[in-house]
């Protein structure tokens, strides 16, 4: 932070989601002196609260060909540069008896027009490929959908930015701007931990804060017509399906089921919400009912599968600047030069878009920053692999020999790709598993604390998947708290953090609190509040959205 104060940056990026991290990477790769500022933790907003779907673009082929073309292009790029974040599942668009097969014909034509490979399958063939799909389907189309881990993807972009010289600070909120006339020359930040305020100077500031970018723009004295749209999703306790399942109809609610790691996710809903709710989102019983009702049509197995959690993210919908009513929503990427638009120099907003197009959004924002700084360097983010996705010598060796990895080695490698080798076990004890559901070892926890900006258990969960499995932190959270304490020696804070983490887990469980989920949480309550005696007096003040 002291360094930050002295340095004048070329570019300040506000927001640690995929877009902000991607922009930091792109700016740093083009040689700009870069800093990224995140209010909470990476992926704490919409980036960490979506399907984790690597769209083929097929979903948009009929309604929004421009988005569809962007998606398939980025899809192919991410498969190359972010291979350790992607699980190439393939996807199906299935037609149910209640849907029309005529849509399928138009859908396939539109896909091909946008450059999306789409192959009509015989329903029986589709059922053989994906046995979890509803057996009553009357049509199926295979497309190159896949799943992408947004936590890993963002972390990899952060690491790339750092390797290229960027500074990264988390848990610092932007509370104001430094201005010189009509030019923004820096931001005023406040530490979420200590409350200390500081000023960071930069020639250009990029607002990449997703829906929170509305307030950032306001602080800068400009108005961006954004609308928060809530999308709710459910996580199932195991991997029900192996291919992404979509309904072949006009995009609607709860019509995508995505397998990811050890689980499957159904979503999403779409509801406009007021701005004062964006930090406090509960999934309502009505949303849970809708997701289940529609999800079961895609895969009847969902009716008998344990639901692990419910969660919701906020899409930043951006209204067309030409439409004062706000009804006409821009579907694609919105990159605003506030000098041209509002007469505020040195300030750029990048918004709209989707996780799929984060890299392209970053490229557009960085292009604009470079133009402002009169720098002419090409974007290389589409060709340079992300940290973890570089080809390694081990890859070659593995191709030559068959090397058997243990399940925990495989799990770590799925998370960290070619950087797995940086996880060093100094003794047998370091190989011990902290989180058995997700196979996270002591050494991986130590690596995350040393290298991946981990300050608390929620950060640890996002970097390693610790606590994301069927026990929802029941057995691993206290172990991990013990390890964090060993690392930073701050006992009181770590006990508070453990208490907060259990509340954060509960926040996603209570909307689906029946069946095995209720059994699990009752057991967890007896263990933590009873055996361990964790029963904080000020528990009602724990804010699960403050991580």
């Amino acid at each position, binding site marked *: 932070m002291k360094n930050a104060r002295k340095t004048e940056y070329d570019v300040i990026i506000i927001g640690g989601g995929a877009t902000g991290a991607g922009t930091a990477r792109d700016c740093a790769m083009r040689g700009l002196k870069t800093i990224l500022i995140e209010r909470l933790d990476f992926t704490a907003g919409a980036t960490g609260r979506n399907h984790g779907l690597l769209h083929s673009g097929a979903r948009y082929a009929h309604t929004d060909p421009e988005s569809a073309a962007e998606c398939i292009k980025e899809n192919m790029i991410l498969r190359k540069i972010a291979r350790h974040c992607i699980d190439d599942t393939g996807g199906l668009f299935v037609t149910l008896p209640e849907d029309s097969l005529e849509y399928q014909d138009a859908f396939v034509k539109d896909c091909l027009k946008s450059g999306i490979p789409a192959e009509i399958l015989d329903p029986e063939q589709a059922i053989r490929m994906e046995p979890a799909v509803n057996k009553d389907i009357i049509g199926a189309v295979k497309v190159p959908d896949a799943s992408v881990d947004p936590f890993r993807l963002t972390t990899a972009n952060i690491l790339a930015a750092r390797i290229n010289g960027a500074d990264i600070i988390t848990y610092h909120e932007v509370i104001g701007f430094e201005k010189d006339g009509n030019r923004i020359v820096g931001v005023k930040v406040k530490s979420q931990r200590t409350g200390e305020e500081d000023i960071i100077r930069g020639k250009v500031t990029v607002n990449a804060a997703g829906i929170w970018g509305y307030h950032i723009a306001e602080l800068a004295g400009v108005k961006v017509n954004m609308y928060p749209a809530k999308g709710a999703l459910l996580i199932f306790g195991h991997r029900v399906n192996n291919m992404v399942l979509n309904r072949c109809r006009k995009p609607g609610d709860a019509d995508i089921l995505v397998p990811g790691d050890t689980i499957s996710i159904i979503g999403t809903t779409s509801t406009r919400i007021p701005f004062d709710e964006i930090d406090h989102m509960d999934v309502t019983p009505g949303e849970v009912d809708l997701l289940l009702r529609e999800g079961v049509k895609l895969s009847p197995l969902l009716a008998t599968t344990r639901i692990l959690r419910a969660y919701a993210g906020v899409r930043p919908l951006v209204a067309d600047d030409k439409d004062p009513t706000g009804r006409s929503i821009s579907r694609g990427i919105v990159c605003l030069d506030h000098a041209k638009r509002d007469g505020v120099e040195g300030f750029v907003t990048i918004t709209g878009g989707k996780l799929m197009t984060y890299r392209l959004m970053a490229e557009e924002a960085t292009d604009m920053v470079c133009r402002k700084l009169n720098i002419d360097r090409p974007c290389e983010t589409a060709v340079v692999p992300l940290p973890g996705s570089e080809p390694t010598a081990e890859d070659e060796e593995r191709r030559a020999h068959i090397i058997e990895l243990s399940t925990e080695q495989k799990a770590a490698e799925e998370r960290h790709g070619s950087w797995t080798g940086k996880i060093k076990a100094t003794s047998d004890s370091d190989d*011990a598993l902290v989180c058995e559901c997700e196979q996270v070892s002591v050494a991986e926890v130590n690596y995350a604390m040393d290298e991946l900006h981990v300050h608390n258990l929620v950060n640890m969960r996002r970097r390693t998947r610790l606590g994301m499995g069927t026990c929802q932190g029941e057995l691993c959270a206290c*172990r991990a708290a013990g390890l964090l304490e060993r690392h930073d020696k701050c006992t*009181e804070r770590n006990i508070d953090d453990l208490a907060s983490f259990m509340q954060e*887990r509960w926040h996603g469980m209570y909307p689906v609190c029946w069946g095995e989920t*209720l059994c699990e949480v009752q*057991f967890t*309550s007896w*263990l933590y509040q009873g055996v*361990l005696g964790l029963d904080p007096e000020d528990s009602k003040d724990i804010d699960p959205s403050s991580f």
Partner: protein
Amino acid sequence: MKFDNIIIGGGLSGLVAAIESQRAGKRTAIVSAGQSALHFWSGAFEFLGGSGPHPVIDNPLGEAQKLPPSHPYQKIGVKRTQQLLEKVPGILADAGIKVEGTLSRNHYRLTPLGFLKPAWLSLDDYFMIDSPDNLKDKKYSIVNIEGYIDFYPRFLAHGLLQHGAKCEVTAVDIPALAPLRKSTTEMRATNISRFLRDDAVDALARNVNAASSGADAVIMPAVLGMFSDAPVQRLRSGVDRPVYFIATTPASVPGVRCQLSLRDCFTRMGGTFMPGDTVVKGDIEGHRLRRIYTYNFGDMPLEADNFVICTGSFFGHGLIANIDRIYEPIFGLDLNVEGGRTEWYDTNFYAPQPYMAYGVVTDQEFRPSLHGETVENLYATGALLAGFNALKEGSGAGITLATALHAASRII
């Protein structure tokens, strides 16, 4: 098959009810589905200890008088509850389990995170103190087993420091444990306990002595003695200063030992223990439960004069919740559940949770009802009962044991 009494559920409640029934000469059987709450036992039993910032220390029996009339202690009567519970240390001692503590005043146990929590009975080798003042200027050596991550020495040290104690934190190793570390999931309490026997305990004691010189006492994780307390005694006699144990996260080694000891006590008396079986239904005729059917015995019924149901709450599967209702799965007994699923919980994890107080409603004698009519020869106990939050009251074991002993007194 015909018995005098059949106990459904093999946890603490079921075992104690069964032992008392068998002791009285009744032919008794337990049908036990699997693990119980003893498998994550803290090593202490609570009668009425309160919770978190509201502990009860001085006069728990007096506090029990203030509970509502529907509370199990009041239904039994506080005086009679006391009489029943005073038998507990003796019952446990018969099974080889030594506990200390009294109903007239709670003591404190030290939780694995370093908090002091009130308790009624604690295992005699566990860390227990009458008052936090006793900790002042004490020197403790907190000794972990190298590589064991379900024990948090620094949290304990921090907790003890708050009350003026001084702590040193170390970890010791012995060669006998090396094979465990070769696997990534074996350094857990129950596995360690299998290796800590005979000479390995002596080696451990030597290392503990070397690591704890100058301390008044040694604090260690409870990872010894799953099948008997001999390794615990051996360690304590080999270490130069007192050794006290702290609970670990599940599975609890002393909890498993307690469960097995009670089961063995019951079978030694001639009781029939049916492990790994689940009661699926029963025939209730003329307000009496005539026979039950289990998964293993299929259409061959088990008959008895009296039955006790000790199947626990949700995680014991004594109660089942699905998306739109909560029910008791064997007989469909009447419950106190009100409202749909949004009424079942509080959004604050640490607040009293409504679901914790759900259970079967009973008459004054703890006999549950079906469609409003009491089943005259069926008694319910412990966590299956309705109308109290044992976690927040700090009353889990007390209610479990008092209702089990009450039921036993009615069926013998």
